[in-house]
């Protein structure tokens, strides 16, 4: 069990800087998810914590002591790789016990630990098989088992579920989360899937282009995204962003008034963030959605189209079944003023 501290971590490959200074403190036993689009530097950050990549600038501390210069092994971490990276010529048992074997643990102890981890992961029947003879989900569990038996201070996961099919992904997501809660090891988990991030994280780090845009609890990020990027990245379907303005203490979109603006904001242009699921049908509302496409999902219905008052496309997510008579239909929608997010058009930072 351990705390992890990142102090202004930077990474340069040659002259190009790909991580521009990330800082955070991770509590003992916390499950942190690093989420962001492809190429934003998630893996690089994780690999620096693992010790597989050198740190160009800044400091990484595990349990209070600086580990920048330490080999992965000496950092007492375990890593689960995207393609599992199981040793193909070893049995499941040997794969799981390899780290302990190198550390010189007595054979009997290794066997006991492997058996225990295998029971936990429902792998007991497969211990003598080679990875080749396992399904994707089972391989994934072996990779987890290899991490568990070492009893490391920190678990590191790099997109461990991305090679699995959708259904298995949901199941493994639950299993990993459950397991982590049971053994309580501090974990860093990288994914580009915001659903995984929302469901698994105690806290998440939303990354964009080498910067941590926001660090916080999933629901806090959802309810109060700190930047436009975080607002659009978290939540599905993603938030609608429209060009509006504040006039005489009121939020306006084109000719339509959306309600009183939060106190203390000067008049001027703003970016309005409206979540699709916060749009409600309301015959009296001036916001009128011209539907181009409707996606009935059963539990809810996605309507894609354009508002009369704005250029940008708009998506609404209405609860339940909603039968439309096709393209061109006009639906008046209302969004509660307190559910509207305001962002600065220049910096993209949150205003309210």
């Amino acid at each position, binding site marked *: 069990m351990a705390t992890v501290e990142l102090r202004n971590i930077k990474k340069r490959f040659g002259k190009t800087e790909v991580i521009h200074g990330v800082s955070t403190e991770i509590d003992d036993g916390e499950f942190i998810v690093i989420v962001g689009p492809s190429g934003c530097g998630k893996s690089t950050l994780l690999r620096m914590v*693992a010790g*597989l990549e050198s740190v160009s600038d800044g400091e990484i501390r595990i349990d209070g002591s600086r580990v920048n210069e330490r*080999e*992965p*092994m000496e950092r007492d*971490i*375990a*890593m689960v*790789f*995207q*393609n599992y*990276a*199981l*040793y*193909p*010529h070893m049995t499941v048992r040997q794969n799981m016990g*390899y*780290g302990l074997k*190198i*550390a010189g643990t007595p054979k009997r102890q290794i066997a006991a630990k492997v058996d225990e981890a295998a029971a936990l992961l429902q792998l007991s029947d497969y211990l003598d098989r080679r990875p*080749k003879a396992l399904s994707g989900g089972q391989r994934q569990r072996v990779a987890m088992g*290899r991490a568990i038996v*070492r009893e490391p201070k920190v678990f590191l996961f790099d997109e461990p579920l991305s090679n699995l099919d959708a259904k298995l992904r949901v199941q493994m997501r639950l299993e990993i989360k459950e397991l982590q809660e049971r053994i309580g090891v501090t974990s860093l988990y990288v994914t580009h899937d915001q659903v995984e991030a929302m469901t698994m994280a105690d806290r998440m780090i939303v990354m964009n282009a080498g910067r941590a845009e926001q660090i916080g609890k999933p629901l806090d990020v959802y309810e109060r995204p700190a930047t436009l990027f975080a607002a659009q990245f978290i939540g599905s379907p993603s938030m609608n962003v429209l060009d509006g303005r504040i006039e005489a203490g009121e939020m306006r979109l084109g000719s339509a008034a959306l309600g009183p603006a939060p106190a203390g904001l000067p008049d001027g242009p703003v970016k309005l963030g409206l979540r699709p699921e916060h749009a409600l049908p309301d015959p009296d509302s001036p916001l009128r959605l011209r539907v181009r496409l409707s996606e009935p999902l059963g539990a809810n219905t996605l309507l894609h189209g354009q508002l009369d008052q704005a250029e940008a496309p708009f998506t609404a997510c209405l609860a339940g079944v909603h039968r439309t008579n096709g393209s061109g239909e006009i639906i008046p929608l209302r969004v509660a003023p307190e559910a509207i997010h305001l962002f600065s058009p220049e910096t993209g930072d949150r205003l309210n």
Partner: protein
Amino acid sequence: MTATHDIGPGPAQPSGRRAAEPPPGMVERRGASLWLTHALLILGVLVVFFPIWLAFVASTVTQPEIARPPMPLWPGDRFFENYREALLSGVNVPVATMLLNSLVMAIGIAVGKIVISLLSAFAIVYFRFPGRTFFFWTIFLTLMLPVEVRIVPTYEVVAGFGMLNSYSGLIFPLIASATATFLFRQFFLTIPDELAEAARVDGAKPMRFFWDIVLPMSRTNIAALFVILFIYGWNQYLWPLLITTDPSMNTIVMGIKQMFPSGDDIAEWPVIMATSILAMIPPVIVVVSMQKLFIRGLVDSEK
């Protein structure tokens, strides 16, 4: 290993109609066509095998029988006598000695080449050191310098070290191998980086990683190369001819040539033929016994 029957892409066929027929591209043979194919194959085997058969027949008859014009086509009754003579006394030196020499040289060359090239390929692929590409290309360039080209300077060096007429003289100059290094390098490049990283996280130092992971993963490749290199070593002719003047250091391939009579001596053809047959046996044993690994090493690798 799964067998694929597609020989080529073949013309696209509407599916369904031909469900029970073989996939497009594979030509199915029936009746006369099948017999013809087999007849041709058998004929081919006979053509290839015939000289070997003649050699075997010649090794089981007496000298006068060979010299008399219609060459015998069926084995005689001198099998044991001829082979005993070849193995125990030979012409210049007992064949048993030459077989032993050849065996030591072939195994020495094969094992030496494999060890050296495994290690150098490992260094080139997994370590970043100054001049890495330079060294790789230097090794690669030596591909263009077969033994025959560098034979004179090599001879000087070996003679200078006093290694004439010794196993080390037979083996060491032939060990450095660009081909094997290159093949292992290509194989190592196909091992995912994450495997090396997983081993690093597990605490394996480089040589431990080599020993525990790279080596076992390369075993089919090693077997395939062993077969090829064993035969390469076994068939060496020019080099042993140059550096072994003492008959007791002769290898079998050069030894056969040495048995040919010079001037007016009478050739002991039955003994020479027996020697030839004996010379073929070890490579055949190596190929046959390692056939399965050999083919697996050439066609797929365990990853």
